[in-house]
Structure formats: C-alpha cells, structure tokens
C-alpha cells in the first residue's frame, strides 16, 4: 500500500471511509449481493459441506509434504520446457520479473489480475524499468487508470460507482463516455484488445498449480486470462508456494467450491489449465513459460501460528461477511490484502508490528470462519496476533497497564468487591435514571454514541444472601 495511507492512523482511515457516502453505498450493494449469491449457490449444493472439509484436508496434506509437491511441480514444468524461478522476497520477485521482461524485449506487458503481483508491488518496478504494465481485468484496468490499489480481493474496483468510472475513462481516454456499465465495458474491450495483440509478455498469477502434471490453473471470467496466456510470446506466472495441489483429482475438489464461494457461480466463465509453453505443432501459445515461486513470508508460517491462512483460496468470501470490511471497505486497511484474511496475510508478509492496529479491526464475530470454503479459523489467529502484539510490547504502554490492572482485580476477590462501590461513587455525577449518557476520557468513546447502563445499586453478588434465603427448604 502507499506509504501515504499508512501515515494516517488506522482509526482515522476507518472514520474517513465511514463518512464517504459513495463508498458506503457501493459496499452495501456489493457485499450484500456477494453474500446472497454465495448462499444461493451452496443452498443448492448439498455436497458442498463435505467438499469444504475435503478441500481443507487436501490443503493440510499438501502442506505437510510441501517440499515434495513443489519438487514434483518443478520437475513437471521443466519437463514441458517451462522455467521455474525462486523468489524469497518481494524485491527478488520484482527483479526476476523485470529481468525476464527485459530479456524478452518487452515494452508492454499485459497483466491478468493477480493479487500476488500487487503484493510485490510489481507495476511500479516495471514502470521504473521503462516497461509499461497494462492491467486487463476490467476492475484492475479501472483502478490502474485511477492510480489506486484494489479494494477487494476479487472485485478490485467495487468501491467505485459507474459515474466515477465514466468520469475516469472520459478524463484518461480523452473522449466522453457515458455512465453505463455496458458502454464502459465496450470501451475497455476495444482499448485493451490491441494491447493483447501487441504485448511481448503476459503476466498472470495462478489460482492453483498441479504438481503431478506441471499445470498452472487460472480461474477467470473475462477472457483476459486466456488472452494473456496465449497471445504474447512470453508468459510469466507468479505464484505463492502454498498454491500447489498434488493432482488433477485434487484440483477438481477446489474448482467445485472456489467460484461458488467467490461469486456464487458453479464455475467461472474460464477455467484455464496452462500446460507450459506452446508444444511443437501448435499454432498459438507462448514460446516461453516462466513460473516465479513466491515465498515472501509464507515459508516461515508453515511451522508458524499463521499456518492455517496458507489454505486461503483468495475467494473473498470473508470480506463480504465481515461487519468491519462492510463498513470501511478495502483501502482503509492500508495494505494489499484487506478484510479478515488480509490482516493475517499482512502479518505474514510484514510482521506482527504491521498489524498492531489491524489485529483489533475485528469484533471476533466469526462470520469469516463460517464463510471460508476451507474453514480457516481467522478469529483464532487474530487473537494470536493480538497476543504477539502484547508479548512483544508493541501495544501502547497505557493499554498494557489497563489490562494488567484488570487482570490483577479479577484475580483478587477483595479488590473486585471494592470495584462496584467505587464505580457507583465515580458514576454518580453521570447517571440519569438508570443510564449514563456521558463519561469523561477514554470511556467517552462509548458514550459519544451509546448510553451505558449504570453500575447496579446492588450487584448480584450483593443480593445473593437474601436471594439464597428465598428458597424455602422442604
């Protein structure tokens, strides 16, 4: 994410998002629609629950032998004439890809939507090297024109209204375009068709890679994924190491649930199984195929507390149900991946310090874990991140004092017993009827928008003696 955004504290970024009426409306419409589509898809898919368990079991089994499966994948790809590159860091990945682009003599590269390339800030690096990256996924194309980053894992421009898109196209393309999605799409189609045909290199991500066969799998809807992997001379796929699956039989388990979780479709319009460079005798296809395997914090988590998040299919279902995401949208999070899984991925890539505020951007309601097709227990890991933030003294000193004070009171009944009378004394100036409408200092954060019940004139513990006498022994 841009450093400029991170200079503002998270709470302020969230507040700004809440005050943006366009964003609020866009978020409500989009997330509600996604939720409905997913629910309907699984409602008519009774095998879905069992498949989710199976998918999770496959991810776990793969992780337990990840080295073997990756080795197998590498061998399979190289057997078909493809090349594999190894990127431990984001910087390394950028260097590898820019290098490949230079060697390919690429002036333009066309890109199919890839969160992995967003993660490593690839576009900036290409531009810096004098190479023009062209985003071809409609949502990515829109935000590229706007100079923004994606605000949702699968629908990058979901925060924009059609009016905003029309304004953008008119400004950037130098001709008036009406605020009609059909028209806007036609414009994008025409603009990008030429780019597909001219670009020397295509860059994609990969939803899966099949170890047994060396197949890279792209799940898309627009057709740009197919263009990017068929028309340019060189195809580069960037993929996190955790995306490998053992066999075609495993792949199909994931295909059966991925699109349903993301958009409610049984399958996306195009599931493309790329077998490497063009075999001899075929008219079309890239001459060169390169897979860039990306670590960027993943390998450290295989044996780490965020291990479960390596099962993520990047479907976005958790974003759509998250009460926080639904209110603040993706940009407020400040990093490449927003929403519940985004907090975990950010910690994976940038360390626990990076999420000292984001780890608390959750009411721990559990809707994410419920929606996740591979049943990732996101709340558990958010609590673990909070623990790390506390353990490493990243949390502010005042906060730690408050909680330690609370802990001390809760383990000393004598202190605790004094708590209620003390609170009753302090609250007296503020109580109206049974409610408190205003409190000073930190507690004002509650009373700014909500009343608070007054501490009872007698706690339950204080009433128990007479209550216990009510029960008449027989």
């Amino acid at each position, binding site marked *: 994410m841009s450093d400029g955004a991170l200079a503002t504290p998270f*709470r302020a970024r*969230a*507040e700004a998002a*809440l005050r943006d009426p366009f964003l609020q409306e866009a978020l409500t419409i989009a997330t509600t629609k996604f939720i409905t589509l997913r629910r309907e898809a699984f409602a008519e898919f009774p095998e879905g629950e069992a498949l989710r368990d199976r998918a999770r079991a496959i991810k776990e089994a793969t992780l337990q032998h990840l080295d073997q499966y990756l080795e197998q994948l590498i061998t399979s790809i190289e057997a078909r004439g493809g090349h594999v590159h190894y990127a431990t860091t984001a910087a390394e990945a950028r260097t590898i890809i820019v290098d490949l682009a230079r060697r390919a003599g690429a002036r333009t590269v066309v890109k199919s939507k890839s969160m992995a390339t967003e993660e490593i800030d690839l576009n900036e690096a290409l531009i810096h090297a004098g190479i023009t990256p062209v985003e071809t996924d409609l949502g990515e194309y829109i935000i590229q024109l706007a100079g923004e980053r994606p605000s949702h894992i699968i629908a990058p421009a979901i925060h924009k209204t059609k009016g905003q898109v029309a304004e953008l196209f008119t400004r950037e393309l130098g001709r008036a375009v009406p605020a009609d999605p059909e028209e806007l799409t036609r414009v994008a189609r025409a603009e990008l068709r030429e780019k597909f045909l001219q670009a020397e290199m295509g860059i994609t991500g990969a939803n899966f890679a099949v170890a047994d066969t060396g197949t890279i799998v792209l799940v898309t809807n627009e057709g740009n994924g197919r263009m990017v992997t068929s028309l340019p001379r060189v195809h580069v796929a960037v993929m996190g190491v955790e995306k490998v699956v053992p066999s075609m039989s495993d792949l199909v388990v994931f295909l059966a649930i991925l699109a349903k979780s993301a958009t409610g479709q049984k399958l996306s319009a195009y599931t493309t199984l790329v077998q490497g460079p063009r075999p001899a005798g075929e008219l079309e296809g890239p001459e060169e195929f390169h897979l860039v395997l990306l670590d960027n914090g993943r390998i450290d988590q295989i044996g780490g507390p965020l291990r479960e998040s390596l099962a993520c299919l990047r479907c976005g279902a958790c974003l759509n149900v998250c*009460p*926080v995401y639904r*209110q*603040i949208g993706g940009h407020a999070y400040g990093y490449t991946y927003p929403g519940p899984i985004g907090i975990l991925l950010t910690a994976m890539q940038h360390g626990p310090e990076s999420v000292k505020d984001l*780890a*608390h*951007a*959750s*009411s*721990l*309601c*559990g*809707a994410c*874990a419920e929606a996740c097709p591979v049943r990732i227990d996101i709340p558990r890991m958010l*609590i*673990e991140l*909070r*623990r*790390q*933030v*506390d*353990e490493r003294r990243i*949390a502010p000193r005042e906060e730690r004092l408050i*909680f*330690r004070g*609370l*802990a001390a*009171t*809760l*383990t000393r*009944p004598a202190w605790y017993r004094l708590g209620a009378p003390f*609170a009753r004394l302090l609250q007296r100036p503020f109580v109206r009827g049974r*409610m408190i409408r205003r409190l000073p200092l*930190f*507690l004002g*954060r*509650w009373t*700014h*928008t*909500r*009343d*608070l*019940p007054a*501490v*009872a004139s*007698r*706690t*339950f*513990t204080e*009433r*128990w003696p007479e*209550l*216990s006498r*009510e*029960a*008449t022994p027989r």
Partner: protein
Amino acid sequence: MTPPLRAALMITCLGDVFYPEVGVSIVRLLRRLGVAVDFPAGQTCCGLPLFNSGYHREAAAVARRTAALFRDADHVVVPSGSCAWMVKHEYPGLLPDEPARTQVRALASRTYELSQFLVHVLGRTEFTGATRSRVTYHDSCHLLRGLHEAQTPRMILQRLAGVELVELPGSDECCGFGGSFSVRLPEVSTAILDKKLANIEATGADCVVACDAGCLMQIGGGLSRRGSRVRAVHLAELLDTGERAS
C-alpha cells in the same frame, strides 16, 4: 425422593455489575423448575476480555481461579453465550497442565448457556412469561458460531405464551460490541450497531432479546441513546413471571 438437579450460576462480570436482575430472574426460574441453585462465592470473570485482547497469561490466571470455584458443580449455567464459550472452548487450551486440564475439560462438558440448559438438560421448551409483546431475537456471535446454537432461544420464544416472535433480518450479523473493539474503534462499532438498530426497529417489535450481556449493552445502549421505545432484554427477563418458588 430423587434429589433435585443442582446447578451453579456463573453470573459473569457484566451480569454481576450491570444486569443483576437477570441473575435474579434466572435463580427464580430455575428454582420454579425444581433446580437447586448454588452460587459459588468469590466469582469475578471468566477471563474472556483478557483472552480476546491477547493477554493470555493473565487470562489463564483468571481462568484457573474461576474453574476452581466451579469444580464441584454438577452443572454450570451461564447467562452469556460468550462466557459459556470461553469456558467450554478456551479453558482447556489455557490450562494445559494437569490436573487442571482434566478438571476444566470436565467443567467444559458441564457448562451451559442458559437456553441450552433449559432445553437440553431440563428438557423444557414451554414456559409462561409475564409479558405480552412482540419480540425479535438477535443471535449473539459466540452463541451462534461458537456454541453452534441458533435453536434453543427461538424454541423457547416461539412457545412462550403472550409473546409473538418476529424474525430479525440479519439476526446473525454482529451487533458491533466485540468487547474492547467497541472502544478501540468506536466509530466502526457504532456504524455496525446502527445497521442492527435499523433492522430491529423495522420489525416493529417491542423488545429485542439476546442471550449475551455484551450484546445487550451495545444494543440497549444504542436504543436508549436514540430514545427508541424498543427495549433490549435478556431471555431470562421474559421468562420471569415474578413468582417465587415455594
């Protein structure tokens, strides 16, 4: 004569301090149903606020103390789904050393949120209440997703004489409390709450029922601030006929 069923009430910190009348209603209700109610002395908190904010060493100390207080209970009844969840799901992991671990596992299996106790242990779904109202029900997150319970409160409310239950749209959506979340990110918490309040008021209900003190504080606090005529009540309050056991 068979000895009466015994249950120990875990009042919870929020219940003790802010909603003691809920505890009173529960005690009277259980006694009317023939349950002998104990109240182990010295209760403070289940430790969830510490746990959720990542202070696990401290949460473990509180958990150890609280678990010890309920060691001899046949059944533990909890008015809040979140506290029941804490005991059942997190206590074993927080106290891995023996003999505590075995003890808390046993405790976990004997701990129930109130509506679950009424329906699954006492086998009761029909109650008389003291109110004639239109009510709607909010699923608190830990009861719904932590304890996987959407039915027991609804079963009781549906059969409660004098009460008309209307389904709350988005009943399974969070109210925005989330413990410290409500004051760490008060603007977001309030925005989430506003959505919940709009749904509640749209049902035309006289009151919204929840089985969690945190939700009641958040929802009740919001309703009160906007001067709504809708009340936020705990399930136990609707089941309180005002009678004492005799």
